[in-house]
């Protein structure tokens, strides 16, 4: 038997380097450098307006949809080490690899099946058998299949809020993304639906890398491997979740996670 190394260094999925972001004159992100590891959950925490959602939305170039947004720096996506923020990179190509789940469930005005199949159709997959197979896999992975398998043709709006959010997760998973961004995915849900989504994220990290923004520190503590604390556009502290929550190095981090502000 060959000796195994005690700890395998975690593999990088993405690396932000000196990321700066401006909304008009407002400097929303200041020189942020942060790694995102493969098959791990990285959580971004911080009070409202700290820039965590802004940071997340850089990863799929969502900011390109709006004028007056400027950004600089790099986000390298591995294994091919491509800079997602480069002007030469088509934002649509970025979104083909990095998918996103939003704060509020946003199913499209279509059937359950067509919602889950949306990204596949965008990618030119229109064969019925292939669509059916991938939609089923995605719905199984999003823990929704058993609830909807007999009513795939019903409008997605008939589902409950928690089911709609899991459908949005299925939609994001169907395209086999390399990285999934979650922008406060449970903030519009009740505690039971929240618990099922958290459970789901823990299963998903076996397959994909996850970057999640959350308002809820317990959530970050429960699901994530690594946590970054942002405050007023600065990255204050980053580390293993179990260390950051137990023994924060920074006074501001400590104040925030103990609920003294935020």
């Amino acid at each position, binding site marked *: 038997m060959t000796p195994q190394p005690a700890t395998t260094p975690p593999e990088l999925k993405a690396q932000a380097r000196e990321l700066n972001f401006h909304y008009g004159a407002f400097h929303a992100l200041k020189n942020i450098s942060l790694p995102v590891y493969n098959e791990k959950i990285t959580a971004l925490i911080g009070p409202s307006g700290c820039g965590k959602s802004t940071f997340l939305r850089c990863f799929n170039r969502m900011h390109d949809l709006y004028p007056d947004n400027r950004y600089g720096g790099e986000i390298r996506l591995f294994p091919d080490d491509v800079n997602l923020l480069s002007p030469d990179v088509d934002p649509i190509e970025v979104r083909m690899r990095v998918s996103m789940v*939003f704060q509020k469930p*946003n199913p499209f005005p*279509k059937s359950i099946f067509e919602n889950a199949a949306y990204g596949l159709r965008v990618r030119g997959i229109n064969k019925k058998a292939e669509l059916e197979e991938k939609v089923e896999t995605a719905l199984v992975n999003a823990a929704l299949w058993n609830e909807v398998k007999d009513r795939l043709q019903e409008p997605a709006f008939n589902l409950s809020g928690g089911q709609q959010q899991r459908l949005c997760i299925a939609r994001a998973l169907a395209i086999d993304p390399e990285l999934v961004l979650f922008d406060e995915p449970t903030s519009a849900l009740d505690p039971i639906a929240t618990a099922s989504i958290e459970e789901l994220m823990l299963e998903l990290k076996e397959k994909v890398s996850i970057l999640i923004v959350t308002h809820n520190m317990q959530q970050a503590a429960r699901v994530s491997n690594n946590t970054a604390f942002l405050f007023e556009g600065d990255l204050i502290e980053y580390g293993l979740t179990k260390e950051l929550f137990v023994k924060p190095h920074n006074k501001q981090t400590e104040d925030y996670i103990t609920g003294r502000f935020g």
Partner: protein
Amino acid sequence: MKSSHPRARKRRIKEGLIETGLLAAACSSVAITFAILYILVKESLNFFAEVPLFDFLTDTQWTPLFDDAHFGIITLISGTVTTTLVALSVAVPLGLTIAIYISEFASPRLRETIKPILEILGAVPTVVFGYFALIVVTPLLQKIYPDLPGFNMLSAGLVMGIMIVPYISSVSEDAMRAVPMHLREGAFAMGATRLRTALTVVVPAAFSGLAAALTLGCSRAVGETMVVAVAAGMQPNLTMNPLQPAATISSFIVQVSLGDLPHDSIGYKTIFAAGLTLLLITLVFNVIGFWLRQKFREEY
């Protein structure tokens, strides 16, 4: 302060007067609508006392002013339906395309430039459109179809279509802009292009508003008078061929109203029956539109 204080009493009286005034203003429009309905129905009943309803609905000629009078409303309806269909075949694709462009593609600056221009198009008097159809569009069409008569439904319908484009595009654009941004972002995040997002997410999400735009356009086209009166000819003609001249319900009413028919003649009474028919047709469109809005309304 006691409520019997003179100042309080004065205020209450003043408020009461204002409220009554506002109520009267609100009631007046309802009252006028009912008055119109009353006149239309009453005069139509006089008409149907002389002309059986069956003949009105099934006769294939409309010659109320001739000695051998016929009262087949279907002749006028064919003209109304044909010009409306021609108009909608122009207005719906063009109006929707413009709405999609303004709502989903145009920069804010461009949008603020295009919208007022479109609204000016909606403010051009319809009689001007009528002459535009007769003097410009018909001669152009005659270069393609040399046999086209000087008065025809095609030219009138096309121009009427251009005329209602601003109505359709403006209501549609409002409906599409009301679709919440997070729905669009969902589609963009999946890698959809702007066009795909517009067609597969925004348009279905705005469907109830688009249905409203469509019914508004229909009602406008059905009731439109001057363009068809000027450019489509006023001969009643039972045909659905847009290359033919024909009279519509509205243009017939204009024709008779402008003439000097005695008030108790049957010819005079026909305009009320025709007017009632027109009202019923637009009512049907409005009911369909209302139903579509209810059925497809989505809450986000």
